């Protein structure tokens, strides 16, 4: 059992979790007449691995899009790093320290692995137009500095040998890893993973789980993930939000959630009478 304090808690495996990095208050999201998310509140704490689970169509992906700032909820407030987040354009989100991966891999197929990961650094690269055109001074310096950071990530995720391969030629599991690398390259404070293990075999899942834990452990990155595989979720995450039909039906440690009657009903089905 975790001991909860006002500004953090200690996890089962003894990690210190900090205060609230993000807090969502009474979020409601509608598409036309359809209510995708209804009145959901939860928080994500500094340094933890937070999972959002739920059956198909529960609104998990919509929730992640709200967290990332891609969707703007009609009602409710999103607090991030202590201030209320204003609606912004999708391309501004990354600049605020949020990076993500996608459910259906969204890599840039025409570019090499290295270039794909370098795109994660775009927000850090400020060299002017002219400097880039003549490749002198800041442009070249900045390119090499950022390349060094990216190389560390490449080492970390063990993809050195495919550095110069065009992404389109990679197998599925590696693509997922490259996508994680691209998100990490942005050095995010909050990393969002949309079904990082979807469609993987057991071995690939184990690899990916290890990388997620290592990222959290080594860089101290806060992670929020959506996943279908219950086993994986329960092993990985510190706290879990359970959604069903756009509502929150459970929130707590994996053990708490596992024993929550509502959650059991949602997953196993319940006789309606």
């Amino acid at each position, binding site marked *: 059992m975790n001991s909860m304090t006002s500004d953090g808690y200690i996890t089962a495996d003894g990690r210190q979790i900090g205060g609230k990095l993000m807090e969502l208050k009474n979020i409601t999201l509608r*598409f036309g007449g359809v209510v995708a998310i209804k009145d959901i509140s939860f928080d994500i704490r500094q340094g933890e691995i937070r999972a959002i689970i739920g059956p198909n169509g529960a609104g998990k992906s919509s929730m992640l*899009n709200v967290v990332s700032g*891609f969707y703007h909820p009609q009602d409710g407030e999103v607090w991030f790093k202590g201030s209320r987040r204003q609606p912004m354009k999708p391309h501004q989100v990354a600049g605020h320290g949020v990076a993500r991966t*996608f*459910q259906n891999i969204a890599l840039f197929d025409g570019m090499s692995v290295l270039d794909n990961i370098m795109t994660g650094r775009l927000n850090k690269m400020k060299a002017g137009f002219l400097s880039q055109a003549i490749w002198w001074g800041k442009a070249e310096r900045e390119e090499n500095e950022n390349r060094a950071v990216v190389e560390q990530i490449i080492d970390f995720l063990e993809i050195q040998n495919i550095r110069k391969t065009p992404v389109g030629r990679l197998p599925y599991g590696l693509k997922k890893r490259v996508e994680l690398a691209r998100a990490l390259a942005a050095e995010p404070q909050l990393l969002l993973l949309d079904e990082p293990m979807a469609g993987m075999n057991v071995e690939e899942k184990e690899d990916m789980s290890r990388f997620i834990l290592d990222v959290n452990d080594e860089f101290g990155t806060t992670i929020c993930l959506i996943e279908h595989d219950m086993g994986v979720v329960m092993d990985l995450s510190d706290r879990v939000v359970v959604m069903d039909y756009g509502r929150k039906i459970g929130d707590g440690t994996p053990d708490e959630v596992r024993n929550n009657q509502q959650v059991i009903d949602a997953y196993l089905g319940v006789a309606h009478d």
Partner: protein
Amino acid sequence: MDQLIFASEVMLNGLMTGVMYALVALGFVLIFKASGVFNYAQGVLALFAALTLVGIQNGQVPFAHLINAAFGTSLHHFGWTVPSVLAIALTALVMVGLAFLIEKLVLQHLVGQEPIILFMATIGMAYFLEGLGDVMWGADIKTLDVGLPQGISESIETVTDSWFGYGYFIDRLDIWATVIAALLVAALVAFAQYTKQGRAMRAVADDHQAALSVGISLRFIWVMVWSIAGFVALVAGIMWGTKSGVQFSLSLIALKALPVLMLGGFTSIPGAIVGGLIIGVGEKLFEFSIGPMVGGATENWFAYVLALLFLVFRPQGLFGERIIERV
């Protein structure tokens, strides 16, 4: 008052042009719906059809120019003429054959490519067909006469004269073209909506895979729509060819249909019709009212700029559905 009457005459002419635009645009929409190909070669198809028609009518020897150059002969005509109806039927056959070849040699190999690649392939096809038409039939300007009435319609002139004190100048060919185009448009719409093949075509447009899985033959549908497009091109070629001779500029009518499509949406049949009318009337009225102030010939670009401005405010076109982007 006089201005108003002039304007109404201009508008009438614009409407008639608009129907022709709608017809050409429809050729685009059908192909786009069925195969996802935005067929830039549509205009060249019309030119090719008209050239073939004239060639067959006059009993020209195909590739005479090439054969003469290669073998030193001096062939030009077989020495017979073919009656219009038969010539049109033969040309229609040629167009079906062409549709078959296009499917076999080009489309089949480009299945699943990005739309923009397909589009560029049709530009290549347009070049090839333009060259082929010229090599086959010669590039000189030809007159086309399949017996359509021409000249100013006196009856309309007299009637409007008695009404407004001003006789409308309207070409009988335009009236015929409008009627035929309108009939063809109606027939195509009916075909797409009510026949089995039409339904299959729309199914293919929705989802290639799903259509395949319920037993629709993609190849058949593609050959069919390209044949229809060839036939539409033939009709357009006859109208325009009769009016201003069979020559390269004929292939430019297709360019005129592009803004119509942007306005109406690439997948909407009513869009093609309404868009065609709007562009037809719009460009004639603009040329009539603003043209003289800026040196005329505004028809060259007006349609594009109109469509462009329109698209900036409504990217999905007149009848297109709103696009929701997802991740």
